[in-house]
């Protein structure tokens, strides 16, 4: 079971990465317009943001 000593930290590290990614996405305002993003993918000229 010594492998746990390696696996648990790895699992926690990956989970921590997820948490950091969430906090970053929150900070950069990615949750402000969810529906808009779904529609904007249909734009086909590159000038549109």
């Amino acid at each position: 079971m010594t492998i746990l000593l390696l696996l648990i930290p790895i699992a926690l590290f990956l989970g921590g990465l997820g948490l950091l990614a969430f906090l970053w996405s929150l900070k950069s305002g990615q949750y402000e317009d969810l529906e808009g993003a779904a529609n904007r993918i249909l734009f086909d000229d590159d000038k549109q943001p």
Partner: protein
Amino acid sequence: MGEVAHNLQAPLEGFAVKDIGANCCAGGAVSLAQSSGTIADFQEFVAANPDAFVTRDEDGNALLHVLVEHMHCANCIRTIEATLKSNTAVCEARVNFSTRRLLLRWNEDLASASDLVKPVIDLGYALTPYDIEIMQLVGDEEDRRLLKALGVAGFAAMNVMLLSVSVWAGIFSADMGPSTRDLMHWVSALIAMPTVAYSGQVFFKSAIAALRAGRLNMDVPISLAVVLATGMSLSETIQSGEYAYFDAAVTLLFFLLVGRYLDNRARSKARSAAERLLLMKAVAATVIEADGSHRSVSVDAVTPGTLVHVAMGERFPVDGDIFKGRTTVDNSLVTGESLPIDTQQGNPVFAGTMNLSAPVQVLATKTGDNTLLGDIVRLMENAEQGRAKYVRLADRIAEYYAPAVHVLAALTFAGWWLLGADWQAALFQGVAVLIITCPCALGLAVPVVQVVASGRLLQNGILVKAADGLERLAQIDTVVFDKTGTLTEGRLDLTNQAEIQNADLDLAACIAKSSKHPLAAAVARMGTNTGMVFDVQEHPGLGLSAEAEGGEVRLGSREWCNVAVDMGDLTAGPELWLSQPGKKPVQFLFEDCLRHKAADTIAELEKMGLAVELLSGDRPSVAADVAAQAGILQWRASVKPEGKVERLSELKALGRTVLMVGDGLNDAPALSSAHVSMSPATASDVSQTAADFVFQGRSLSAVVEAIRVARFSHKLVVQNFGMAFLYNAVAVPLAIMGFVTPLFAAVAMSSSSLIVCANSMRLKVKEKENKK
């Protein structure tokens, strides 16, 4: 890519047609529901005074936030943004499709707000500027803090659960050594304790505040359960015991934070209504000294008996009598009358009303807080204080739930101890009861429904301003409408355009352009701009005159145009005449049209079992006419603001719960005294601030939709509570008897919360069905 996008266009079009019954998104937006409405929409935008909403960013660019109506698909976003960006003055134009808002950043030296948005309005998207401060949800700060706490709790819940599942698996397969289990518990403890310390603060703070005030709230049992569960688990872990509740403690926090976050988002910030009202008043007054010289002073410094000069287009700063001059006064803000009144020497005028046609001198009689406007402010403050504070359903339940839970837990502890268990085991059972009764599902029951409901209403252009608005709206049995601006458009429109020759109309429109009188404005709206320029004179109370080639052209009242008393249509409402030398005079007829679908809405409301009433400040004949058109049987006219409040308290005394729908300043006291209130987005700032709901768009059907959603939400909330109690009824006896293990607690708690959420989502499903 071009082809792909093109192919996608077809299904989008099909959807849009089904969606709103108009071809919205075919090739850029074509005009929508009311194709002739774009001019009126633009007028409305300008009338909303967009410049007052403009703020500045750090680079000195102007910023404007606008609400956008009739936006349905990707093409709409693109059309709006592309149209705005084609103007070189624009730095940024970004549509937020979820909230139907538009952020506009541009260089103010190059273009005004109205010039920028005109092309967009012409495409059929009605725009309304708004004040971001009013619309913003309760402290973004608080929002973010909760979301961070939620993120941390979510991370911890997942990881601790991962470890717990291994422990449970070890129990069943019975091959996990005690040292491995201890390792799992220790790692769980290391994750759970900082999480509880960080994410739990939200509940601890509120619980401590409640205890200090000598009250119990839901957060007290929550805090106790979380802290005790963590502490007990830690002592178990140190003694290398078999059960630890770390997973329960963090999942509890996670679920409760979800509920708390949603609840927080539903509350919105409304500035003190009275504070906004004071902004309506003129800030400066021009006082005429004894020697005839003019001096500008602050309104507060004007005393009764002073002579005040009021220029055309200004609001009167004081109550008083006209001393010199003759003008027309727009009283709609204060009395709700749609037609301006001809006012001459000796007639009274009121602070806050608008001087439309000529400069006058006013002898002040009442100033400052003694004016009619001041009375309205006071009335509103009183009404707000007088309204019994509504206690939300969840809080009323918490009042009984929290003590009951504590007593149960204490009894369990005492019972086990008396029956011979050692105190640690007894405490263990007591804490198990606390954990099981922790109000996860209860905490989610209201907020989830509220978020789904507000989202659905927002898509229909209805903004829920008061956190408990939906709950109160579900209880109403009577709807009271204001007339001008609520049942009607609040704007006079030309009704006999078909009978008037285009040349006459254009001529009249050119002359009318120079006047602020609502009748003139209505004529000016209808004309095509022919570029004719006249030297127009305004004669207060009579009309306009202009020099044209053949002689004097007049636009105004019957007497002004020398029209015989019996000529033309005599029964119709307000009229204007156009007389040209050598030609037969032309009559223009006007009407304040009913809002779109007003009669349907009233019929629908009555079908829902609601009593409908009309309270108008306007003359009886007009009120009766509108009531008949809309199909309202109960109506009262010439009601003063205090009269409206009185009528509402009369209804209340009869045991009725009333929804007040109104827009004018004169409705503001009534709006804040009614059980629940609603106002259109075109309403005065004050009314919008006082109202619990604000609806956009020109259709009145929003009222029906809001009531319907509120009632369905109420049903769902009651069901949710029922389910939460059912869960407790099953789980609590088991916990008291000591059958609860961490595994059982985790499964029971999570499943009850999920069931409550799933039930709330039915509101969304129903919405989709409606759309089909």
